[in-house]
């Protein structure tokens, strides 16, 4: 199974490649990708450096162009596709039907992957993208159970990549506009969820309030750890109760499921976190490399080592991890 790691910038790319990533994924420095954050991502020149570095070390490079252009901006996405093709990237990860159509007709030799933002949760949708654009691989949304992943792979015309670790979207990716409802900016249109420009931290006598677009997302008592105010992980009131009404601030860690994912035929496992530091990328890549190697040596006796789990826990959002939708504790 291939290990696909995030590269928000050149130091992260090197950290991923040096620690055993088989492939890295990255984006251009604009709203053509879903991690459009200040200071992140690559100019074309830096991307060329990154590709050269990865190639020297035998790693592949995937470029994410996974937002949804509006007509006025379409030329920017076209240019990004053309640049990625000129740079001879190993694959383009796209979500928008128009972008996929452009990429497949203009650059028939360019390998296309379906971004998780495509919301392709069933094999009939995968057949559509395969038939029309020759898509070779799809990243599945983080909403499917293990048995559903297995079933999709049995019928899928394309190879399947799944998320193994990192921050967790509880909503189907590409179909969540909670962020733009509060801020005007969504992952689909702007390439960012709960953008920092719209976050306010307000000291109150009781502690610290965090607001997104003016909406109170979290109220921290004094001394409590303060996480990033992603809307779906806020604390809200429903029916007289105050709780994480949508999702707990928790990260995905599917390492314990490696044997099942492999048996199901998953081709690649993806690590989330292009917005995270090179230190995070190095740590997570190294541990997952060890895990994948251990699994390859002894598939039947594989269990995650406690020190791996502990170390991954430390870099997780909310310092807690879950198997997420794969095992559906809430089902």
């Amino acid at each position: 199974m291939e290990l696909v790691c995030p590269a928000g910038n050149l130091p992260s790319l090197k950290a991923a490649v040096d620690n055993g990533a088989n492939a890295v994924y990255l984006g251009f420095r604009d709203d053509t990708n879903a991690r459009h954050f200040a200071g992140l991502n690559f100019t074309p020149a830096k991307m060329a450096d990154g590709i050269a570095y990865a190639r020297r070390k035998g790693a592949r490079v995937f470029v994410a162009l996974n937002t949804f252009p509006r007509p006025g901006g379409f030329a920017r996405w076209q240019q990004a596709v053309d640049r990625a093709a000129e740079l001879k990237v190993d694959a383009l990860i796209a979500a928008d039907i128009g972008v996929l159509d452009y990429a497949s007709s203009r650059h028939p030799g360019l390998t296309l992957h379906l971004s998780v933002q495509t919301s392709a949760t069933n094999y009939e949708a995968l057949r559509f993208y395969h038939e029309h654009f020759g898509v070779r691989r799809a990243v599945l949304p983080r909403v499917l159970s293990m048995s559903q992943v297995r079933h999709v792979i049995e019928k899928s015309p394309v190879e399947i990549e799944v998320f193994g670790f990192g921050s967790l979207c509880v909503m189907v990716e590409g179909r969540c506009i909670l962020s733009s409802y509060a801020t005007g900016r969504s992952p689909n249109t702007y390439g960012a969820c709960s953008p920092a420009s719209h976050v306010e931290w307000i000291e109150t006598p009781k502690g610290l309030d965090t607001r997104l677009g003016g909406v109170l997302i979290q109220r921290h008592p004094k001394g409590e750890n303060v996480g990033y105010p992603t809307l779906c992980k806020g604390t809200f009131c429903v029916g007289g109760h105050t709780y994480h009404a949508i999702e707990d601030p928790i990260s995905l860690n599917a390492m314990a499921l490696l044997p099942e994912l492999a048996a199901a035929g998953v081709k690649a496992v993806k690590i989330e976190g292009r917005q995270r530091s090179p230190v995070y990328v190095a740590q997570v890549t190294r541990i997952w490399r060890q895990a994948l190697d251990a699994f390859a040596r002894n598939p039947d006796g594989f269990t995650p080592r406690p020190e791996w789990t502990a170390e991954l826990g430390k870099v997780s959002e909310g310092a807690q991890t879950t198997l997420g939708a794969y095992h559906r504790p809430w089902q």
Partner: protein
Amino acid sequence: MTAVRGTGSDKQPMSSESTQQRPRLSVGPISYYWPKDRVDAFYDQVAESPADIVYLGETICSKRNEVRWEDWLAIGERLAEAGKEVVLSTLALVEAESELIRLRGICGQDRFLVEANDLGAVNLMQGRPFVAGHSVNCYNDRTLAVLARQGMRRWVLPVELTHEALAELQAARPDGVETEVFAYGRLPLAYSARCFTARARNLPKDDCRYCCIDYPDGLTLSTQDDNRFLALNGIQTQSALTVNLIGELPRMRELGVDIIRISPQAAGTDQVIALYHQVLIGATDAAEAVDCLERLMPIGSCNGYWHGGAGMEQRPLVVGAA
């Protein structure tokens, strides 16, 4: 396919007469879980209403079983007899094989037009005419062109897009494709595998006891400072505020929007339809209708997306005859 109506192109330049008939009004699928009696009573009212098009079917959760496939078809026949164009709408989030089987049933029938709410449904239509629902991400004209080649006869503007984006899309839309705008209702904001209504009731999804039937307008989620913010509707998250674009009908006409969608709410949908109709025919002015509509909404109104702001914002109505 003779029974599939209203799928052809009628993009002739608008004369002052034709603007009186257009845009047409549609009633979107019921997004909530209502008892069958309530659903029947609702469509009895819709049959009598000035709505032109009615979307039918369960689009949120495949476990909901008050209204079964045969029941939907029977409701469709009744509405067709009443002169409505009937469209069968499909599940937005399709995961299980059982859901695909049901989807094949809808996509395989040829009595009514189909609204595809997922690319899986588009694939199953195999080139036959369909409507692309608002959960199909049509953000640019190249996407519209691809889907039109696959049989798309109508598309619904994604709810987060602005009137400026719509103008660009209208300028480049493929021939023979109609445009529909989600103009009234709680906004569909997100879908999940997880059921937030069951979570609120401390029930596992497998034993949800169909508790969403207790919330005919969804379950309101408030912030800790009592701002009623979202509405939980099973696996769907909606806005607590109701989008209302009745003040934008002149702009929609100008942009050549063909259909105005009203999304059903628990009470007063018949009045909402009537008010939109009256404004469209010039019998009521938009400002007056806004006052009436505000009183019918569960909480309040918003229109920020249309104007390029946060979806929850409410920009003031610019007074002008529709």
